[in-house]
């Protein structure tokens, strides 16, 4: 805790302290971007665990795999399919749907960043604005780093006119 923050807060009124606390509440009546509201791997694992009940791989294993640069492309393709199924199944729960969607994008980003491979049927160029945004806006450094690496990798490979990687 820095003295700078404390001295700033010393000048705040009780009303301002309340306003700051209320910003952290989910009671707040503002539209939320659920994808960006994923706080980190721990929260993602909590959200995915219930959805993965009975599945061959646990939520933790799936997450560790997409975060590891050593995970083979084939495994990432498999995780992408699992994540897609989970996202469809979680349509009624915005937080769980977001966790599954983020897992889906992490598998694609990991393949792009670590193996320079596009495992999605969509062109890399179409994904880049979203991945730039996730790299910049996600609060978790590990998750943001995977998208950052994907963006960086996409910038260093040759893309054809349709945004596909030229091997």
């Amino acid at each position, binding site marked *: *805790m820095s003295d700078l*923050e404390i001295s700033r807060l010393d000048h705040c009124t009780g009303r301002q*302290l309340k*306003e700051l606390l*209320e*910003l952290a509440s989910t009671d707040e009546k503002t539209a939320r971007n659920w994808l960006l*509201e994923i706080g980190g791997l721990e929260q993602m694992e909590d959200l995915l665990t219930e959805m993965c009940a009975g599945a061959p791989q646990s939520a933790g294993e799936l997450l560790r795999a997409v975060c590891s640069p050593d995970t083979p492309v084939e495994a990432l393709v498999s995780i992408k399919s699992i994540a897609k199924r989970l996202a469809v199944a979680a349509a009624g729960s915005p937080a769980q749907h977001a966790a599954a969607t983020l897992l889906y994008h992490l598998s694609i980003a990991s393949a792009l960043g670590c193996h320079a491979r596009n495992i999605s049927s969509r062109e890399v160029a179409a994904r880049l604005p979203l991945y730039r945004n996730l790299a910049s806006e996600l609060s978790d*450094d590990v998750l943001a780093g995977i998208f950052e690496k994907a963006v960086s990798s996409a910038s260093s490979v040759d893309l054809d006119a349709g945004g596909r990687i030229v091997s």
Partner: protein
Amino acid sequence: MLERFPETSWTLLARARRHCDEGVRAREDFAQRYYRPVREFLLVLVQDTDQADELAQEFFTRVSGAGGIFEHAHPAKGAFRNYLKQALRNLAADYHRRNRQEAFQMHPDQADGGGWDGMELSGFSAAEAAFHQAWVKVTLAEALTSVRALCLKRKQEMHLDLFEARYLGEADLTPTWDELGARYGMDQKAARERADTVVRHFRLVLRRMLRNEIEIPSGARRPHVIEAAIDDEIRALLSPLRD
């Protein structure tokens, strides 16, 4: 993970009770984190800065050792700040017992009927309010420190400036989003979106801090239960605050 994420109160306390070099360092960290709420509480009660400092010092030296003030503390028994407050009440009662004569002059109503052991000093509620206000400030300051580090790492200095101008500036002079945008040559929507990025960092950092401070039974750790418990904790922090 977020860098330099604050240790939980309970883990810090556990380290502070150890009799080794690590324990000494943890006691320093513990005192640094809680000095302000502890001192605010004591200052309201004793109304003397030197005495409040002395008592605060005494309080922190009693954190460790046999019969230490937190010997029976456990996360399952409730919020850490409530333990801290109870320990402060006990310290204040001890102090007044030691200074009985002076205390009776200050609070003659306590001379009969149970004496100091069962007392309810009139100053306690004001002291607890001061403690709570300081506790909230320390909690928010820890969160804001992490948010600042995160914004600097992400090169979001302007986002942070906008957030601070909107939420931490002079209370009576809170600028509109139009005014804030104009300062940086952007429209109100762009200014608000940038500040909202920091709001989201702040929300996630603070919620994660609070999650670490609350005890959730292992059988009930479903995401919506955890989120609801964090919201309850926020309401508990909000309700005693005065405008």
